């Protein structure tokens, strides 16, 4: 995957590894945990959007499927945490295929429209299946993760768990990007007609990467459910799907590192904007607009250009 990536990976792992040694506040730890959870979904979305050029407006629904499978199956049906997690993955994969197979065989932005509809349907299901999901009042009492008698209850432990998963998925993603699969995905983005002519089965690759990104979201959903122990439908609605998309675009569409940065910044930002009280949404919007205006290729690219410029001065 190249020396630069390995170096960046090493630095990231090191920083995360020592983070809890210095910062013990539960508040900051939980923000870092949320960044990790969002980063997992956003990495999958980055493969789908940034690399393969396909847009999904319903990824929050896959997070929801992961979260509700973990929640409902452990609370109401007594499944083990791991089995419930696997059921979430399985259901997400099936759903993703059901959307992807008919829409991705067509050319054009059918996937965006189909995922938009899918997200709404799933949202309604979460709301209406009162007996199972608890409906609008949510589902509570989801057990924290324990594994071989070791409980991941505290902030520090969960921090390490979430980021270990995130780093492993980052390595997996980087491996894909720097392989023939990654090149095929980027080729699809660059020119579908030429990719086909080079023997790339375009619809098959689009379906594969969509299912993969749905699996990432499902993993994030399960981790989320066991962390907050309470889930309700609005967490998995259209607004969240768009927020995730924004993280990819803001960070820099063409790079998985950009996606990580986007997840970090857009997760932290609302916390710092609390100082603006009722105007926080307004300031948030202005900041997003400013980023898009001045760094149209994303924050990562913008920062690299800025650093180069400062060095030259």
């Amino acid at each position: 995957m190249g020396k630069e990536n390995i170096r960046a990976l090493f630095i990231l792992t090191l920083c995360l590894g020592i983070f809890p040694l210095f910062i013990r506040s539960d508040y900051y730890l939980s923000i870092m945990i949320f960044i990790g959870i969002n980063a997992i979904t956003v990495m999958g979305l980055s493969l789908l959007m940034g690399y393969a050029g396909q847009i999904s407006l319903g990824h929050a629904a896959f997070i929801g499927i992961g979260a509700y499978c973990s929640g409902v199956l452990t609370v109401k049906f007594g499944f083990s945490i791991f089995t419930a997690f696997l059921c979430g993955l399985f259901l997400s994969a099936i759903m993703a295929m059901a959307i992807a197979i008919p829409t991705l065989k067509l050319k054009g932005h059918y996937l965006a429209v189909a995922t938009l509809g899918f997200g709404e349907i799933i949202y309604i299901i979460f709301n209406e299946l009162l007996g199972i999901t608890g409906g609008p009042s949510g589902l509570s009492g989801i057990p924290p993760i324990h594994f071989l008698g070791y409980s991941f209850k505290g902030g520090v432990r969960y921090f390490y768990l979430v980021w270990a998963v995130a780093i492993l998925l980052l390595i997996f993603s980087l491996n894909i990007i720097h392989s023939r699969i990654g090149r095929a995905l980027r080729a699809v983005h660059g020119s579908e007609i030429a990719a086909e002519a080079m023997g790339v089965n375009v619809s098959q690759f689009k379906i594969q990467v969509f299912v993969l990104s749905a699996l990432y979201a499902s993993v994030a959903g399960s981790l989320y459910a066991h962390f907050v122990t309470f889930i309700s439908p609005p967490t998995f609605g259209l607004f969240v799907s768009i927020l995730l998309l924004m993280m990819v675009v803001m960070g820099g569409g063409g790079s998985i590192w950009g996606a990580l940065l986007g997840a970090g910044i857009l997760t932290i930002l609302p916390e710092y904007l609390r100082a603006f009280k009722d105007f926080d949404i307004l300031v948030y919007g202005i900041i997003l607009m400013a980023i898009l205006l001045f760094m149209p290729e994303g924050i990562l690219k913008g920062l690299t250009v800025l650093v180069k410029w400062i060095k030259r001065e």
Partner: protein
Amino acid sequence: MDKERIVTSPLLETSRLRKFFGGLMAVADLSFTVMPGQIKAIIGPNGAGKTTLFNIITGIFPPTGGTIRFKGKEINGKKPHRIAQKGISRTFQTVELFGNMTVLENVMVGRHIRSKMGLIQSGLRLPGVKREERSILETAREKLDLVGLIQKANEPASGLPLGERKILEVARALATDPELILLDEPAAGLNETEMLRIAEIIRKIRKSGMTVLLVEHHMDLVMDISDEIVVLNYGQKIAEGPPEEVKKDQKVIDAYLGVEIEYA
């Protein structure tokens, strides 16, 4: 006797191939053959159906009627990626590079069908991935060297001048190890030196045993490198044969070449 038959059986053969776009007949009952090892050119005025023919052969759209055989097997109606896997590669008239990738990566995509590591294997970097990746890289560099673009391997493909973009498309097509390569106006928009470079590359391709089918408007180039020429007009074949014969054909002169004026 049997050996003889194998040697002379055509690599590509179309029979009564036709394509309608609504009421427009873009290709009309076209039958022609390409023999192994040949450089065959398709010429004709704009709108004669040349690019349409390429698009049908490579599976971008199915023919309305007729058949295409490649190595004796029918390939009409197959998907483009299946046809590429069978050994037909192509370049595009309107350059279709992967602008978001480097020159080298573009050619590496050409190795896609000659490698097989899947999503999971690649993601986990299972044994074999590294070896395959090295061989992809090696072959891609070889092809870039062959066309003389090796010094620009790590530049973004979108940054190359037109002539080199066209040459890069050829290298990418070659990376698939095709038996038949379709070149759609490889010399269009090129200057004199670049054209010589393309001609030289086409000769190199033939020398390595590949068969070439090209569409081209530069008559000097076509007459110079082709073994045989097919002339199309309004989707119909009006002549076929070696360059010297085609050049003298009255129908071809009327439809395309124009009247030759002899200066004293």
